[in-house]
């Protein structure tokens, strides 16, 4: 009962927040475009119009073509697949690690908690970006490794948030009742604790996606992330920078797409946070 009304309240509040709704709308459009890219893109991402080379936006190529005569709009659409995939999958990895870590630490408490959270504290203080680069250098620049490496970095805050929530829950009557009935630890986590902390998890996950996408863009920009012939928005920006003096549209359109996506994710995430936790919405 309470659970339902919390969510329907939240959805009501979210629907009143125009910035968040706009963000959500943009995100839905982007995801649809990314999924449908092979069908809606005017050209293949690798098709080269050899007569053109780099050409400014025209009626045939709405956003122009790159130095190799490839249609920029198509490349942005295909790049959306990779960029969004990295965003969602790496966040998923972070979610799984962070939530399990936080639930176990918070629920068992005591020495287990101390040790687990001390590990999180120590990891917090390390230059993770350097470790990602290190991993990419050592094991080659592999897409799945990139997901794992980014996810393995971003789970720390999630673990802290979940632990805090679980500590708040674990002395409530329904948990004590479940314990008295002899519920196993695993189903305690799955059936009793997890549903009650979905709100904060959803909020933080939404706010992690833009961070992950930034990290991917950053690595791809340095040439250490996505490798050709695949392209993400990060690699498109990198290519755009290399030729921006003559062909500025090659930098500007991928840049605008990337920025709009980050805006949408941040607005939607902020809106979700305000909707699920009205106390914080004042500041």
């Amino acid at each position, binding site marked *: 009962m309470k659970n339902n009304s919390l969510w329907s309240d939240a959805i009501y509040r979210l629907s009143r927040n125009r910035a968040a709704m706009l963000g959500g709308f943009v995100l839905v459009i982007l995801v649809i475009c990314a999924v449908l890219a092979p069908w809606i893109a005017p050209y293949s991402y690798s098709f080269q119009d050899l007569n053109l080379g780099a050409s400014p936006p025209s009626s045939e190529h709405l956003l122009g073509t790159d130095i190799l005569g490839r249609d920029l709009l198509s490349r942005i659409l295909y790049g959306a697949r990779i960029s969004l995939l990295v965003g969602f999958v790496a966040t998923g990895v972070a979610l799984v690690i962070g939530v399990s870590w936080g639930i176990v630490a918070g629920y068992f408490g005591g020495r287990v908690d101390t040790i687990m959270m001390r590990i999180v504290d120590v990891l917090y203080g*390390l230059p993770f970006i350097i470790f990602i680069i290190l991993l990419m250098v*050592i094991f080659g620049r592999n897409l799945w490794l990139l997901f794992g490496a980014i996810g393995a970095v971003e789970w720390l805050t999630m673990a802290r948030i979940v632990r805090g929530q679980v500590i708040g829950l674990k002395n409530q009557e329904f948990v004590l009742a479940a314990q008295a009935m002899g519920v196993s630890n695993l189903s305690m986590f799955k059936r009793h604790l997890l549903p009650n902390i979905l709100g904060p998890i959803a909020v933080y996950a939404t706010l992690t996606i833009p961070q992950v996408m930034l990290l991917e863009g950053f690595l791809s920009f*340095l040439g250490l992330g996505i490798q050709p012939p695949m392209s993400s928005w990060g690699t498109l920006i990198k290519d755009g920078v290399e030729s921006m003096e003559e062909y500025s549209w090659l930098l500007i359109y991928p840049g605008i797409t990337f920025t709009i996506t980050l805006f949408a994710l941040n607005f939607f995430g902020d809106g979700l946070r305000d909707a699920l936790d009205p106390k914080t919405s004042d500041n």
Partner: protein
Amino acid sequence: MIAIFLKRILLAVPVLFAVASITFFLIKIAPGGPFDADKAVSPQVLKNLNEAYNLDASNWEQYVDYMTGLIQGDLGPSFRFPGRSVTEMIATGLPVTFELAFYAILIALVMGVFLGVLAALKRNTFLDFIPMAIAMIGICVPSFLMGPLLVLIFGINFELLPVSGWNQLPGDKILPSLTLGFAYAAYIARLSRGGMLEVLNQDFIRTARAKGLAERIVVIKHAMQGGLIPVVSFLGPAIAGLLAGSFVVETIFQIPGLGRFYVEAAFNRDYTMILGTTIFFSAMIVFFNLLSDLAALWMNPRSRDV
């Protein structure tokens, strides 16, 4: 306070030791040796090279060797630049990166605190909305996009500022520092706004106003001390982020700093350089986190006697 300080330092030593060991063995399991990428060398030359760099010893021996050197501040020779040691290369790159980071932090603090405090004081007016909108832009436009855009506008279109280099032309430090500082200015603006809003609602501020203090003194002497604690705690992690940002900014503007050396080492598979800089970066970040935690502790009167 001193006890906390000592405890944190004691914790930092094993952490750094673990970082050094893990990095060392990670690099050992990396496929291929450091001389593979070069033109094919004769087996004899390869053998001599391996001998010269002590690569034919067992992993364990190399590890003990490296750790002994590390304690003495010797990070070994660079594999790619014969005759130069890693310590030496860090020593050349570090002052440049430090200078860049210093200007960036300065820009971030001045802009961020000013805009954040202003937004908090003028809450829900356009002096609140506009700085916060700018901050949102700063967060959503990554440095690898901001830098090139600034170059395009100020360097190429208006030809106002040099587009690359460091300490060669007048004004060539402005664009890199702005690029690096802007994102942090945005975060600091949001943090100081939040912190100030919390403090401004508290009783001691009402007391200060009630006893007739000038608003300027209430804000600067009373509110900012507490309101800016989140900013101070953020500075430690921000240094870590600044280092990562320096990779991008130094690459865009072709600045001969530590960040660019690291990225180049990653491309060249200069393993000793990667190892050395990783350990060095970790040590610096642990140190700055310690410093910012202590500063935040010191600013918070409630924790001062602990």
